[in-house]
């Protein structure tokens, strides 16, 4: 098999990052665990947000992890795809809204 930058099996090793920096790694995982606890938002809602963000930041590990997490929580594929579209809409909107800057500049430079 050809070498690639991403190996799905590496996801299982995520916890090992603490081995090279225990204090920071542990603080990160404590924080991470706390973020995903049931709170004002349900664990289900947080899972869908995480899935949408995973796509926006284009993290293959995160996409695998939160697709599986969504399945475990009984989230349907329709709900998952809607979440991805929310991410895509924000990402697309973020690009497009800069079009206003382009239009402003164009207008300013044009007679």
């Amino acid at each position, binding site marked *: 098999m050809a070498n690639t930058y991403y190996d799905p099996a590496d996801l*299982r090793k995520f916890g090992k990052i603490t081995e090279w920096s225990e204090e920071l790694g542990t603080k990160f995982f404590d924080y991470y665990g706390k973020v995903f606890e049931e709170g004002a938002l*349900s*664990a*289900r809602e947080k899972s869908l947000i995480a899935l949408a963000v995973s796509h926006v930041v284009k993290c293959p590990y995160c996409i695998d992890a939160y697709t599986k997490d969504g*399945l475990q*929580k*009984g989230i*349907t594929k329709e709900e998952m795809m809607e979440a991805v579209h929310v991410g895509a809409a924000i990402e697309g909107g973020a690009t497009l809204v800069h079009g206003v800057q382009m239009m402003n500049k164009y207008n300013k430079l044009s007679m």
Partner: protein
Amino acid sequence: MATKSLKAKGNDLAVSNKQLEILNGGIFADGELPYFKDKIADIGHFPLRPKKLEILQINVGYMCNQVCEHCHVDAGPDRKEIMTRETMQQCLEVIKNTGAHTLDLTGGAPEMNPDFEWFVEEAAKAGIKDFIVRSNLTIIRANKKYYHLPDFFKKHNVHVISSMPHYTRGKTDKQRGDGVFDKSIKALQELNERGYGMPDSDLKLDLVYNPSGAYLPGDQAAMEKDFKKALKEDFNIDFHNLFAITNLPIARFLDYLIASENYEDYMYALVEAYNPSAVANVMCTNTISISWDGWLYDCDFNQMLDLKVASKVKHIKDYNEDILNDRNIIISQHCYGCTAGAGSSCQGTVA
């Protein structure tokens, strides 16, 4: 969706030895993942010993009207193994002389055993407090001869535990077959009409959720909340509890894991989710599983792997509780499935 049992297809995995070979070898052979035996030895639970017997789980036959993708029994319409009345009578003798308070009937579809109703009636007379039938629901609508089952269940106060993979049609039908969702909904409504599953009713109706794929079940309480909300809003259905059960890598589910190249990841997931606090209450510690032909097993999964109890008493006809309780429970790598996350048993989570 599967259409035939592994046995009917002549699949290698229809033979229990082949399954054990994969479970005990494969990714565990290189020592990269720990053996279940070592894990429980670390917390003083090896050898695993039985506690007081509370549940007799009886498999009255592998025949079923469904061929579910994940079935660890490899049940289906082509499976002819069926418990005889003679073996049922031997079970009844044991029921009368044991302290077990729960009788848990499984299959296949237990209702397809021709002596099913006779057995229910006789077991009730024998003093069982909680008489469970694990119904796939669709059997109630499968054929006119089963249409009376909801009334029969009610008459004998049978505790119905039904499989329901999801509250959406797509996911349910994919795992269990086309049309299963609609028939299951209809059956649940019929049970509700008779008082089953209503908040204050003694007619117990619980649902079982198995993941439809290579992932573990989520939090049981959260899943129950979602199921209750969706089934109530969409179909006005009530039920009591949802049991979230982990799929164990046995028979058709093992075949699926291997064919879909998920086996290794799934086993890693089970091992990573190992929860020491689930070990003390795994179902094999208070349950005896009896096969259609009367052999005794520590659990339903060991039954499917043909791992008979490690005791002089191996068959229902020779049943002796004192001798049987003095045994070591047989464990293997599939036992990680019962200790993953919040733990898994036929009664839901155990930790």
